[in-house]
């Protein structure tokens, strides 16, 4: 095979089926009849280009998984994985023994996830509908620019900003005191903590989260609206019968992803505020792993909790994806 023929064989025009996804290899294409080592030698330049980044992914994603074995060890950093004692499932007993700290972390995680699904998840959908209904493109772009911005600020900055605004000596309390009113007590108040973190998430990410919904809204077939207007549909009917059904696939997809993340809630956000509000309301599974393992030195227990959490998260995504398929939705992926 000459170089030209080879190039032609490898870079033939793509069929539509092939172009729409990574799995779309054309089954009908003739495979080059070369043994694998010849193909490897032929494509060595491609492999060389992929090597550095693949090494990072393999080491920090796949080999790192191996570190989970310390969940079955009484891991001591000075002994390392090789010489630490194996203890079987002992570290996992914390999950079932009714340890109050673990149960507290589990409860807080579930409460926060529930709050975020109910209060935070619909916010960008409403905002996207509102933005989409704006008549002036210029106004819409301005509003979008402002509302997207907080997404690009770190959690440290967001928490600092909230403290400066709502804290004891913050903007709002200064204003209230200057007018002789009672100051409000939000920062460091355990009773107000869930309201505080929920509003932080809404403030930071609602604007940004509209980006996907807006893209979907822009893609809904206009003729549906025209046809329904002819049939006398009001705007509310159009929203209910055309717009929302059009958004359903993306909503389902995001809910599946959210479900997979339901045991990981705002790690940095909560860690930053634990000192101010105490562990009672702010300890979640991720901060529990950090505080037990890295801070407390109970590496094995921390790894066990982290491992179970990771496995449950993965199973949740796979199951939710299956369920979505069963209901005729696209879901996140098809395998």
């Amino acid at each position, binding site marked *: 095979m000459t170089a030209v023929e080879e190039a032609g064989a490898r*870079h033939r025009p793509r069929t539509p089926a092939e172009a729409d996804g*990574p799995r779309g290899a054309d089954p009908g294409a003739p495979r080059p009849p070369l043994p694998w080592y010849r193909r490897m030698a032929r494509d060595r330049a491609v492999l060389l280009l992929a090597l550095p980044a693949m090494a990072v992914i393999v080491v*920090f*994603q796949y080999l790192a998984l191996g*570190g989970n074995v310390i969940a079955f060890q009484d891991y001591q950093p000075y002994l390392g994985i090789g010489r630490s004692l194996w203890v079987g499932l002992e570290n996992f007993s914390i999950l079932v023994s009714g340890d109050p700290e673990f149960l507290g972390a589990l409860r807080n995680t579930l409460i926060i996830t529930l709050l975020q699904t109910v209060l935070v998840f619909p916010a960008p959908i409403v905002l996207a509908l509102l933005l989409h209904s704006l008549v002036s493109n210029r106004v819409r772009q301005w509003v979008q620019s402002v509302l997207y*911005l907080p997404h690009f*600020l770190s959690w440290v900055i967001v928490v*600092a900003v909230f403290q400066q605004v709502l804290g004891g000596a913050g903007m709002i309390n200064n204003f209230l005191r200057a007018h002789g009113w009672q100051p409000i007590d939000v920062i460091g108040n355990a009773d107000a903590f869930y309201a505080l973190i929920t509003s932080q998430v809404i403030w930071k990410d609602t604007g940004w989260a509209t980006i996907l919904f807006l893209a979907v809204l822009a893609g809904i077939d206009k003729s549906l609206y025209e046809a329904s207007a002819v049939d006398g549909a009001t705007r509310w009917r159009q929203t209910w019968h055309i717009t929302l059904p059009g958004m359903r696939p993306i909503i389902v997809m995001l809910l599946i992803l959210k479900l997979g993340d339901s045991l990981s809630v705002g790690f940095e956000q909560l*860690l930053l505020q634990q000192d101010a509000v105490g562990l009672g309301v702010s300890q979640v599974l991720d901060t529990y*792993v950090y505080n037990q393992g890295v801070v407390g030195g109970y590496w094995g227990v921390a790894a066990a909790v982290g491992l179970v959490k990771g496995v449950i998260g993965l199973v949740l995504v796979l199951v939710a994806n299956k369920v979505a398929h069963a209901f005729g939705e696209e879901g996140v992926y098809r395998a």
Partner: protein
Amino acid sequence: MTVTEEPGSGTVAPAEPASRAPRRRRAVVDGVAMPGPAERTAKAVVLTVACALVVLPFVGIVSTSLATPEQVTRAGGFVLLPTGIDLSAYRMIFAGGVVSQALWVSVFVTAVGTAVSLALTTTLGWALSRRGAFGVRAMLLLVLVSLLFNPGMIPSYLVVQRLGLLDSLWALIIPTSVSAFNVVVVRAFFVQLPHEIIDSARIDGATEWQLFRRIGLPLSKPVLAVVGLFYGVGYWNAFFSALLYISDAAKWPLQLVLRTYVVDGTQLGSQDLGIDAAALPPQTSLQMAILVVSVVPVLLVYPFLQRHFAKGMLTGAIKG
């Protein structure tokens, strides 16, 4: 696009009584009835409030960082409109103490990290776009599957420890240097390049490296700009990786300094800043100045980011 005020081409609005449409505003555009005045007012109010909630805190923070010490003390900590401008808080934090040092660390990590990330992401994205080459399908699968799980905090820590990266600035760069999501975005872009260009260059004798360097990279500038800016913002904002891997305070990035002195409220002494005790501005001014310094770089790249992200994000998110 979707809705326009001008009666343009496209769809024809149903006939409307002249009395109901005083100006050139049409009652129905693209089949959607236009909102009445009450609804328009309500929308304007909601969106104005939402924008004010984002903008006003920053106005207060910038004002306080610029206000004179007397004004800050008089206001009890917070100033919305400064009467005079006093840059001493900024002069102090740039005087060579902890904050300036952290600023250098953050600049280094962001600059080097973004360069490393872009190099790794584009080379892998290019390689994965070469359908049919040996091993590409397997590697693509490894990349896609890695999107589904996360090895966990403790195992990641153990890898970094094992590689001897603890307390090294490289620990803030290497583990997060390749985002599988960005690889998929870049690959999607390379895949849709017209293959005729690549074929003809190959016939002219171009090597794989030349194809990547002379065709792939120049054609993908817009997508690389977005991906690079996202990486940059990520490195600049990274907080937990530094908390986890860096215990030497001399190597702290800005976000950790921000947490210590602003979120946790640790007092910044004159010796931390390397200045005269007598010249120390109020803590609030210093804190606000640190906050401003950590936000400004994000604000500077934001307009560029914004010009591209709708396009860049959507290629990744929808075509993914």
